[in-house]
């Protein structure tokens, strides 16, 4: 279709959410369904007409066409009781001129409404902003289409019932938090699908990065957005080295770093270099900096673990000490600086405070193995295997346990 219309796929994906955002801003988030249908109609019109008559300004053309399609749909919708009300709103003026990219950002914020459960925020974002079909989302999460469809329907209804309506540009900062979180969840789920092997969903990772780029365009001044995008790029860059033969998970310290995607690493590092952090760097920027330290090292031995330990300590403070996984990672970094024996007591204290914390047994097993306490390491590996719900991770732990027996 791109060859026929002369429009590349990237532009479509930029134009569609932008157009939907504009319509929603005019007609209100209660009209989510109709607006979405109108945008679909306009995209079809574009596919038919742009091949022979390409517009000067594709965005303006699409928006104007989608508005006409919206009007058509509302006028022909005789069954709805609130028809008169909506027809009256058709002539509502634009809420104000927005810079390019802003409407897509507002749409993202709308989809990540803080009142929606995280799973609904993610589903709605993938549907409305990324333009994935319900079937594609269902496939990415290995859920039935009806489950995803129901989540999206319910989310739209919640948005329609919510009086606050479409987010306003001046509130961009306030509602950015949930958007960053949703994109981050998308990325971590793409790389760590708890539902099973393989441990990565390429579509989901690509969508998350695409949306983060969109967000970066729309808020270039935010260091957290830059941090999130850099973190995503540096994480994605590791993928070729992360999954070994037979879907085996290769941990960071065993990865062949020459297989990392150099272009993504360079882009991520360049982003970090360009950021001028404020007085207190946020959690995403700090995580990106940690990934950056790994990306600059050629292997585990040459990694600046002292720097990583400091960054994790800052991250612990930035998140109010509420995330025990961060503390666990700080302990791992500390062990690289001080040796495994010195941190076992802190690990036990953390495990006692958070009995259900994932990966504690895997970390303990690894530390005990490095300390030469083989028998204790073996029983910790067994506990870790029982506790993990990720198939690739289970395989990796079994492999470590087997090697322990050989050594």
């Amino acid at each position, binding site marked *: 279709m791109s060859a026929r219309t002369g429009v590349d796929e990237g532009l479509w994906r930029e134009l569609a959410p932008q157009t939907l955002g504009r319509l929603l801003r005019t007609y209100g988030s209660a009209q989510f369904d109709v607006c979405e249908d109108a945008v679909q109609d306009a995209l079809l019109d574009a596919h038919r007409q742009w091949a022979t008559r390409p517009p000067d300004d594709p965005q303006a053309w699409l928006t104007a066409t989608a508005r006409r399609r919206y009007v058509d749909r509302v006028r022909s919708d005789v069954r709805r009781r609130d028809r008169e009300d909506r027809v009256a709103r058709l002539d509502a003026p634009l809420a104000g001129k927005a810079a390019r990219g802003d409407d897509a950002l507002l749409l993202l914020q709308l989809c990540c409404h803080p009142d929606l459960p995280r*799973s609904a925020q993610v*589903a709605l974002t993938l549907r409305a902003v990324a333009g994935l079909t319900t079937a594609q989302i269902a496939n990415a*999460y290995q*859920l*039935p289409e009806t*489950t995803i469809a129901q989540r999206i329907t319910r989310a739209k209804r919640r948005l329609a019932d919510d009086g606050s309506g479409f987010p306003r540009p001046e509130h961009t900062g306030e509602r950015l938090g949930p958007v960053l979180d949703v994109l981050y969840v998308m990325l971590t789920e793409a790389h760590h699908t*708890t539902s*099973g092997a393989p441990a990565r969903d390429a579509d989901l990772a690509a969508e998350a990065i695409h949306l983060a780029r969109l967000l970066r365009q729309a808020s270039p001044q935010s260091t957290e957005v830059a941090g999130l995008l850099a973190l995503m790029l540096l994480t994605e860059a590791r993928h070729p080295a992360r999954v070994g033969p037979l879907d085996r998970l290769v941990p960071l310290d065993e990865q062949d770093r020459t297989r990392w995607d150099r272009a993504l690493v360079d882009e991520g590092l360049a982003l970090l270099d360009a950021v001028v952090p404020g007085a207190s760097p946020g959690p995403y920027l700090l995580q990106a900096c940690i990934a950056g330290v790994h990306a600059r090292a050629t292997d585990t031995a040459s990694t600046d673990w002292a720097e990583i330990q400091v960054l994790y300590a800052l991250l612990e403070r930035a998140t109010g000490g509420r995330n025990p996984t961060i503390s666990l990672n700080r302990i791992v970094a500390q062990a690289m600086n001080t040796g495994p024996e010195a941190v076992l007591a802190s690990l036990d204290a953390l495990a006692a405070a958070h009995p259900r914390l994932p990966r504690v047994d895997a970390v303990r097993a690894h530390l005990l193995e490095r300390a030469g306490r083989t028998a204790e390491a073996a029983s910790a590996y067994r506990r870790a295997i029982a506790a993990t719900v990720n*198939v690739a991770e289970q395989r990796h732990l079994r492999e470590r346990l087997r090697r322990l027996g050989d050594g």
Partner: protein
Amino acid sequence: MKYVILMQVDPAVLEQLTPEQQQVIGEGHSAFIAATKESGEFVATQALGDPSRSKVVRAGGDRPEVTDGPFVEAKEFMGGFYLLDVEDEARAVELATQIPDARIPGLALEVRPVVFADLGDG
């Protein structure tokens, strides 16, 4: 995060239920299915036939052996399951407490995380 809620049933307990209790259980399950579908957490449910209809396939000498009857002699059997996709384990447990079996002495529910899923193409 997907969880399976296994329904442990005891045929002796089921036989002694009053018609009113049976009706409460039936309606309770219907309401549970409707509520989890509405919330977008429902994935699937299956009720299993009586264990007397089980066949057991296990490794034999040259080839797998097939025998009648349940896998192990036990008072309780798996009667069926719900497959749900929920935010976390706490939510899975909360939903399990809403299943009517949770109010019948002698019946029980087991909540376990799913580690691999392939639901096919449709």
